[in-house]
């Protein structure tokens, strides 16, 4: 790895191992997420990218290894306390609350009263559609709108880090463009760790990458170097 002077890392994942039931899913994953960056986890289906995010937020706690948020180890704490330390989580399949209105979906994420009114302008600038739909039940939104709501929800409290799992999954190309633009804009305020199957989207958005292969992190570095490294791309990610 490059020996350049490391900027401060918001998040450091060091050699975590995670089991789900009797299955050994993560078998040594390490990720560094420098402040202000967009870091992307790449890898084939089932490699363990989603489980890595879940292990960070504490939904599937790792049984060994360390997760440090700004140098402070948080692994093993209950998920709600890890989240309250300043991590926003946008799970795959746009897990919004379908029976709650758009406004309630946002309001439930408040950690302090008034979070939503403080951050409302920023959020609705990014996703103007949501303002129009504010009273509708989340379940009535289109797929793209739901995905926007899931990202917006993670922006309601002041988070240091956003974990975003497959934001482009199942969306129309136009919507993917909008989503990319929104993530690019919000990354000016918050550090992002992204899981993205769509390599084109990932390569345009991210500054850094980590490749996960069968539960192990095998390679990480600068995105700019990866796009030139066709051998690595074909070896770990299949075709470009």
């Amino acid at each position: 790895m490059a020996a350049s002077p490391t900027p401060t890392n918001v998040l450091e994942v060091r050699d975590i191992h995670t089991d789900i039931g009797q299955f050994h899913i993560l078998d040594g994953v390490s990720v560094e997420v420098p402040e202000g960056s967009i870091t992307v986890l790449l890898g084939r289906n089932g490699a363990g990218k989603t489980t890595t995010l879940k292990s960070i937020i504490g939904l599937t706690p790792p049984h060994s290894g360390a997760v440090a948020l700004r140098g402070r180890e948080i692994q093993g704490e209950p998920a709600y306390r890890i989240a309250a330390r300043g991590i926003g989580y946008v799970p795959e399949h746009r897990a919004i609350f379908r029976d709650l209105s758009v406004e309630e979906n946002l309001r439930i994420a408040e950690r302090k009263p008034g979070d939503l009114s403080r951050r409302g302008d920023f959020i609705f600038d990014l996703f103007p559609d949501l303002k129009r739909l504010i009273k509708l039940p989340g379940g009535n939104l289109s797929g793209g709108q739901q995905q926007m709501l899931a990202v917006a929800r993670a922006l309601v409290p002041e988070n240091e880090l956003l974990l975003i799992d497959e934001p482009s999954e199942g969306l129309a190309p136009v919507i993917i463009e909008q989503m990319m633009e929104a993530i690019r804009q919000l990354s000016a305020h918050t550090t992002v760790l992204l899981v993205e199957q769509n390599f084109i989207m990932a390569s345009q958005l991210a500054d850094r990458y980590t490749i996960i292969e069968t539960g192990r992190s095998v390679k990480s570095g600068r995105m700019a170097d990866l796009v030139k490294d066709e051998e690595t791309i074909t070896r770990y990610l299949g075709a470009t």
Partner: protein
Amino acid sequence: MTALWKNNRGLLIIAAIVVVLMAGLLQSLEPKVWMSIMLSGATLAALYFLVASGLSLIFGLMDVLNFAHGVLFVLGAYVGLSTFMNPRLLFNTLPFFFVLVAGLIVAQHFGRFFWRRIGAVRSRQVATAVLVLVAAGLVLLALRGFPIRALNAFNITAVGGAVTTAEAQEPMAAMLRRVTMVLLAGLPIGLLLAPKQARDELPLRPVWQTLLIAGVAAVVGYALLLVRDPGETFMLALSADVRFVLAIVLGTVAGALAGVGIETTLIRPFYGNPVTQLVLTLGLSIAGIDLIEAVWGEEGNPPMPPPSLFAANCRSDSLLGWLGEHCQSIDVLGRAFPTYRLFIIAIGIAVFIAVGLLLRRTRIGMIIRAGVQDGEMVQALGINVRRVFTFVFALGSALAAMGGVIAAPYLGVFPAMGSLFQLQAFIAVVIGGMGSYVGAAVGTIILGLARAFGDHFVAAGINVPFLDTVIKGSPAIARASTVLIMAIVLLVKPAGIFGKKE
């Protein structure tokens, strides 16, 4: 318009079916008969709802099927009855619960430090066994020879019990000894309930809070005992109406506390292990009724006298007339209907609205609704869902217990009253859709009406058009009708009318 149809399809279909059915029944029955059956059904529905709403919320949020919910209904009824008729029983038994909680809370707070010192698995097993033995020994010693049957003679002191208070209760010194032993028994139980693994530990509340809660509980416990004689005299001197309100309040509070107790001891240690939770609540549904029979006796009690608002021996012409006359029945299209049952219906509606507002308008309600859908995601937003679980369990238990108290003047009080209502409530929840609050309400209304009409047709028979004979059903058909409805609903919508969960 289309959105309205899309969002409420289940409700609209059911409403249409019910309206058509009711209109058909109205054709074949006299309006006054039809109306009184409807009201009887609504009375049953209100009571079913008080049990079913809690069951549904608890299942929706925590995936726990609480088979002990019927026990809470019975507990509420008995605590209410004792408050109303036999306060000396309360003054001599409630202190045990308060001091037990006091000891338990203190020991649970410091328990984690105890378990941290014992590293080896073997020593932990030994420590657990020793603690169980010590706790069981202390409880047995404390309760050996406790004159529960005398305290409870005929469940009545209000109108002159068979045993005088002085004979029924033990001398103060003996009671103080018993209560103190239960306080001490709380300590090993608290240690047993303390988190044994670091990963199970919830954030520790400040020491002063623990000591304050425990202190208040202990003081209340001993104080209740010390004032038992003036307390009993005072309570019996209160008017029957005040005692009725007190019965509802204490019965409901008892249900809430029992709910917290069940959640923290039987449910919380076993999240992620639903079979264990199921078996534990099933066991409690049997042991709980046995415990209630041990305290209050196996024989049933006649209905509690209703408050004076519903007691005057007359028949009012209208609700307005009833407001002045306080008659026990009211004229509904020329037929008498007991006013107390209207009160039960009113309570059912009031609770439906109050809990609905709680769910719709408050932050905790929002968290509950979100948690029913995806508890993991709620956690990932930084919200401690477990704390909400305890609240919902307490709320559901309180509603069931309240149902028990309110049913007491209508049904009487007997140990089997809970299993009856629990079964119907389960069916109502399944019909309405597990975890849906509105579903629970709709399910209970359907069941209440089905039972009422079923009972009527068993008694009076059905006039089949174009036939002279009257077809009478057997009582078994009336009882089976609810299960039949459930089967039909599940065939059409496997998740229930409003169900979203599998």
